[in-house]
């Protein structure tokens, strides 16, 4: 009975758009491969086989999922308040740097203090990088798309400068963080035949739950979503719109900063001097859009993209298809999700035709 009521509540059309988009994206990818003379079936088969049957690629997929889901949550959280956070890339970078710097500077502390402290440092740095565009928007009406892009580049050059001048070691990177701050685990690595899977997935799960709880179970979350629906109505209802904008981008920044911390404390255990962005932040936009800005959706979309990217490596070695094809497919999926209006329109047309005949 309850299940039935639940099923009725779901808006199937809304759910259908991401599914159709993914299918269309994969079909387009196949057409491109076929047109150039690759074997699309072999390519997709190698992706599926590697991530589901080979523990190493399975582990790497979950590993890649961790920052992707966090970045997706960051974008989705801001979206819920009607804000477009393109700055996840920069927030991730300062979070990465802060967590690694904290781990190295306070390297003498015991694990139960140092590890949480380093994770928090990453989140805090991301929060700061989200707070600034939030403040600029609330106080000076600076559009967040422009300001977060600017903040991205400021983060890129600033972290590179800080590493070069204060935490430099051979190989254009920071020293490796002490074991006491590391999220890596010999147990998880053994389990997955030497993948870089680390305990960060626990952080990601907590973050997914936290976002759901904050937005749908607290008064503040209700306010944030109300501002997203209609800033004017919220203002009229006595909500502090500016304050909510700042809060939303700050929390969004925390998620992004944590994504960076996961890379710093888990995957790499150090930070390189980046001359370009990691791409995780931009992928986060795709993840959020495809996941319809819901925690569960973001998790599923994150899994899909992580799987595609990890499996894409084997696609290159087995079917000879350059791994960039995955990026093309992801881009196409974003276009399709973004064009949901047309998909809806087409589906409506089909439905009407169905009724006539």
């Amino acid at each position, binding site marked *: 009975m309850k299940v039935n009521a639940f099923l009725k509540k779901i808006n199937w059309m809304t759910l259908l758009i991401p599914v159709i988009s993914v299918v269309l994206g994969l079909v387009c990818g196949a057409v491109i491969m076929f047109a*150039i003379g690759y074997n699309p079936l072999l390519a997709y088969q190698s992706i599926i086989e590697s991530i589901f049957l080979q523990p190493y690629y399975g582990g790497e997929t979950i590993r890649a999922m961790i920052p992707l889901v966090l970045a997706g949550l960051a974008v989705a959280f801001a979206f819920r308040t009607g804000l*477009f956070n*393109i700055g996840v890339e920069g927030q991730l970078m300062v979070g990465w740097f802060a967590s690694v710097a904290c781990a190295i500077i306070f390297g003498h502390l015991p694990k139960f203090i140092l590890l949480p402290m380093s994770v928090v440092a990453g989140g805090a740095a991301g929060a700061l990088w989200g707070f600034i565009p939030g403040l*600029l928007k609330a*106080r*000076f009406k*600076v*559009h967040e*798309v*422009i*300001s977060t*892009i*600017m*903040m*991205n*580049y*400021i983060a*890129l*050059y*600033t972290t*590179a*400068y800080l590493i070069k*001048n204060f935490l430099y070691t051979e190989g254009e990177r920071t020293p490796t963080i002490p074991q006491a701050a590391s999220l890596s685990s010999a147990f998880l690595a053994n389990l997955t035949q030497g993948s870089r899977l680390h305990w960060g997935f626990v952080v990601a799960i907590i973050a997914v739950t936290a976002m759901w709880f904050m937005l749908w179970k607290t008064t503040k979350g209700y306010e944030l979503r109300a501002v997203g629906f209609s800033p004017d109505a919220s203002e009229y209802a006595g909500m502090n719109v500016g304050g909510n904008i700042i809060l939303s981008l700050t929390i969004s920044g925390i998620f992004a900063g944590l994504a960076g911390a996961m890379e710093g404390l888990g995957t790499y255990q150090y930070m390189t001097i980046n*001359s*370009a962005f990691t791409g995780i932040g*931009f992928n986060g*936009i*795709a993840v959020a*859009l495809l996941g319809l800005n819901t925690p569960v959706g973001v998790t599923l979309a994150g899994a899909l993209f992580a799987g595609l990217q990890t499996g894409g490596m084997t696609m290159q070695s087995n079917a000879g298809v*350059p791994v*960039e*094809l*995955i*990026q*093309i497919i*992801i*881009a*196409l999926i*974003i*276009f399709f*999700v*973004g*064009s*949901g*209006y*047309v998909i809806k329109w087409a589906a409506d047309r089909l439905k009407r035709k169905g009724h006539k005949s």
Partner: protein
Amino acid sequence: MSFFEVLTIIIPSTLLTAAPLIFTSLGGVFSERSGVVNIGLEGLMQVGAFTAAIATLGLEHAGVGSASPWIAILLAAVAGGIFSLIHAVVSISFRADQTVSGVALNFLALGLTIFLVKMIYDGKGQTPYIGHNIDKINIPGLSQIPFFGPIFFQQVTYTSYLAILVSFLVWFVIFKTAFGLRLRSVGEHPAAADTLGINVSKMRYIGVTLSGVFGGIGGAVYLVTITSNYNVSTIAGQGFLALAALVFGKWHPIGAMGASLFFGFAQALSITSQQIPYLDQLPSVIMLTAPYVLTLIVLTGFVGRAEAPKADGVPYIKGQR
């Protein structure tokens, strides 16, 4: 080193780095003036740079010689224009969020160009170096002028001056022609423009396509004057810098040109500051981040308000208010 010598290093270097930014930000002016936000400038530059690399190499192979990079720039303009149609269709006809579409455009451009490079060059991630660049030259006649000659007209490329000339041309088109008036009206108040019989979608398609043409030229100029080969990091942020120049220049062609020159100056300074007394003391990070920090400050309104076209970023749906 005298102040004069410092100028002879920095000014030509500024002109060199500014040219691609000027072209690309002018493209942004067309698109945003028509009411379509274009975050995809980066991707359009990538397509332009890629096309320029492949075309120059091909033309050289065919024996065209030193005209190759110039023809390649034209081909890149065409490629950029065609590629930008994706953004136009998705954001104008399909009414997708323009920022989303722009982000996807960047994704697609990088993925597609590197994919094609790997296809063409047997899995290598970069093209060979082109044989004929557009070289730095001393402009005949002008470079002989005392004092100004060595600063402005020696060791420069024609593309820099072309870019500056084109920005005046764009200013004329946008502010002094009927076409420009229509383009701006569609970006400010599409419903009013529609009432007067202006085809909003058509004007916006033209705006976006022109942004692709200019973005393609920008990327191509960057390739044939600066990097000479195309790989994954050839265009890393130039397009976003051009976007910043567009905003810093307050959506005005001459403003965008001035901002591009200024950003070019900051970049030139960050590269050459090691050779210049006093400036070598300054951390390069200040010069590198200056364009972005200054753009943020301009946007806050402390130095005159920067206002986007009213309908910038808003899809136009007939009959909806």
